[in-house]
């Protein structure tokens, strides 16, 4: 053998004989994975057996329910910026993942789920714990694949991570039959560079940046909408520079929260159903909207036919399927937000839109007088959700990661926490999954151990994944847990109040003593019923080293305002 052949051999990783189960773990490590959220069972036992020898390289966290694993992986992925990993067994283990996978799909969160499956000769035989997981998850994954032969492992795992992390991120599921886990073969990790049928980096910027810059430079009343894509591509800084240079007022979607510090002079608030008055109402007058990494969700647009009647739209979007799906843009920049905004920044003129901006300030004043001040600084009566958020915000100086569940408290958290730092709001926006908060907050803490992480739930949603208190306790995770207890499925009650003649149909809850449950798990807890105790209780919770629960009894029939009723135009946003 010649010299060249030798060097060639050296650069190629040497193949090592091992079991399929070990190869899965090796391939994960090769992808940079160090944390796994999972739950064992029959069909994935070979992988769990292999895991026993990998304890020093892979941290496996035993959750209490597979749904918990998915939300934890989502929270983790949000902090890390790359895929979170879940393990589950076949059948019920795998079907328990479905809600979290669907959640990750709608919110563009990278995730790789690995499920065990019965041996290949049992496929389709209605064997014990056999479910067609590929069929079940096909509509809710970005990609899925069933491995029946260990030889497929290196390539498929590499491809799974490549797809999950690139372009518009999303969940991928790999189902591995038991025989493949037991199969001995020669393994070497693989890289995935290219997938010809999937090319997220070949985006079309072309001349669109010049055209966009022209529109921006001559706009009289422009607005910028920032969404999830800004955070995903880590474009916060360039977006901020862009806004400061062009003087364009910036509104955020629910997922775009914390891209801009709430206190930034150019930041005018949140869009959508329970967003701020100004950005919703004034979007009618905008002559140009620069939409960056957002997808015109129906909770943002209200009645689409009446949305942005006077605006040209520049859509910065990485996913070609989003272009023109809801709103027809004048200019499309098909790219990730960071690349597009960096190019755009160089081509726009410095400007100020003082008069236009003043309109937002006036709207805010109106909203403040009619809604915000009463909500955040009530003098008497029961505790309000908004004031809890306001106090949390003050005591954490806006630097915590807020992980709300779904419902009224979620909207209150979005509206009243004053974000001072980026990547500080992790929420289930697309699917609106109750039960998201507790496991997701645990995942966030696992991915960002140095940050203060606050889970905020309603008394309804908290009971949807309450079992994850066990995971938090076992892992000694310092997650702050706040329950805003109104003894109602508050958001549904509000709708019944507003649109169903106050017929409160199955929305009141008789709840357990949450603090006792928490203490049962070894997590200290405190219940607050009076305003005078609130600040001290929050301080105790924040100072405590470790998980801590605060159950706060809040006004039972508080409504979230402003509100754009479903199907109404955004300009018809109601302040009461």
């Amino acid at each position, binding site marked *: 053998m010649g010299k060249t052949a030798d060097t060639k051999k050296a650069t190629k990783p040497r193949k090592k004989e091992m079991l399929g189960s070990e190869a899965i773990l090796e391939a994960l490590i090769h992808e940079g994975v160090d944390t796994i959220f999972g739950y064992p069972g029959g069909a994935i036992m070979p992988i769990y057996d292999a895991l026993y020898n990998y304890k020093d390289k892979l941290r496996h966290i035993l959750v209490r329910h597979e749904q918990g694993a998915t939300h934890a992986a989502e929270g983790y992925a949000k902090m890390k910026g790359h895929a979170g990993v879940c393990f589950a067994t076949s059948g019920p283990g795998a079907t328990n993942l479905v809600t979290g996978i669907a959640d990750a799909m709608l919110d563009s969160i990278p995730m790789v789920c690995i499920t065990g499956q019965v041996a290949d000769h049992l496929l389709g035989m209605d064997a014990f714990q056999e479910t067609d997981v*590929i*069929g079940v998850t*096909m*509509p809710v994954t*970005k*990609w899925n694949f*069933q491995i029946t032969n260990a030889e497929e492992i290196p390539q498929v795992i590499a491809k799974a991570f490549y*797809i999950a992390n690139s372009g518009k991120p999303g969940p991928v599921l790999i189902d591995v039959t038991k025989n493949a886990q037991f199969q001995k073969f020669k393994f070497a990790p693989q890289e995935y560079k290219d*997938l*010809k*049928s*999937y090319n997220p980096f070949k985006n079309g910027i072309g001349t669109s940046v010049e055209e966009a810059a022209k529109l921006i430079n001559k706009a009289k009343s422009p607005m910028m909408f920032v969404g999830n894509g800004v955070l995903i591509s880590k474009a916060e800084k360039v977006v901020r520079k862009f806004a400061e240079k062009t003087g364009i007022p910036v509104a955020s979607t629910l997922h775009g929260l914390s891209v801009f510090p709430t206190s930034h002079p150019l930041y005018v608030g949140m869009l959508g159903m329970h967003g701020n008055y100004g950005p919703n109402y004034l979007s009618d007058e905008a002559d140009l909207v620069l939409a960056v990494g957002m997808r015109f969700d129906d909770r943002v647009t209200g009645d689409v036919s009446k949305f942005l009647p006077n605006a040209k739209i520049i859509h910065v979007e990485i*996913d*070609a*399927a989003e*272009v*023109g*799906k809801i709103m027809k843009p004048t200019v499309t920049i098909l790219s990730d937000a960071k690349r597009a905004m960096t190019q755009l920044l160089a081509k726009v003129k410095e400007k100020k839109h003082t008069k236009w901006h003043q309109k937002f300030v006036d709207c805010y004043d109106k909203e403040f007088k009619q809604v915000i001040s009463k909500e955040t600084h009530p003098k008497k009566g029961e505790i309000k959700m908004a004031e809890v958020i306001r106090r949390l915000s003050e005591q954490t100086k806006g630097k915590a990661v807020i992980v709300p569940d779904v419902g009224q408290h979620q909207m209150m958290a979005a509206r009243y926490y004053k974000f001072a730092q980026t990547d500080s709001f992790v929420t289930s926006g697309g699917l609106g999954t109750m039960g998201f908060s507790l496991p997701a907050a645990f995942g966030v803490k696992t991915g960002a151990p140095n940050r203060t992480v606050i889970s905020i739930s309603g008394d309804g949603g908290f009971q949807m994944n309450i079992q994850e208190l066990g995971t938090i306790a076992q892992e000694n995770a310092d997650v702050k847990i706040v329950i805003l207890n109104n003894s109602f499925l508050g958001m549904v009650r509000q709708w019944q109040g507003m649109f169903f003649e106050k017929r409160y149909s199955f929305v009141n809850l008789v709840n357990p003593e949450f603090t006792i449950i928490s203490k049962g798990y070894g997590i200290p807890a405190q219940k607050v019923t009076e305003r005078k105790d609130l600040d001290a209780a929050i301080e105790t919770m924040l100072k405590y080293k470790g998980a801590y629960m605060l159950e706060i009894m809040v006004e039972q029939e508080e409504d979230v305002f402003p509100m754009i009723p479903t199907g109404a135009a955004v300009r018809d946003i109601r302040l009461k």
Partner: protein
Amino acid sequence: MNKKNKYTISAFVQNSAGILNRITIVFTRRKINIESLTVSETERKGISRFTVVVNCTEQMVNRLQQQLNKVIEVYKVFISEDKDIIFNEIAFFKMQVKNKAANEKLQKIADSNNARVAHASAKFMVIEKTGSKEDITSLFYILEPYNILEFIQSGRIAILKNEEGMSDFLPEGVI
């Protein structure tokens, strides 16, 4: 804007397990009824071609194209109206043959309708017709009085009326 039209979708895909499911869920999720579906391997190994005929609005067909493009295994999707493509379907009519006269009569009908007799025996005959859906339907009505034992019609196959070939939109070495 809301006018429905007939569209032919030609999708070039990586031939892999589950691909039929991946393609059809794009339609079922949007409650689009598939009028016809044909799948076949292309001149290049490993790449299959889906020809799907749908009746929907222009907006919907564009959305279907965008969503099909998102399927990882899909390389390329074309949307065509009938004027942009050469297309055809094929049908078999299994006819009862009672006697010689009937035999001759059916043979004649086949000849005058540009169809051919693909199989003939004492008791039955199979007439094969290639043509548009309309051609096939009109032959169906002609044959109906003569007792059709069985009838089957394929989905549409279509090819674009331009000089481009696969190597233009899917350069060699793609897979």
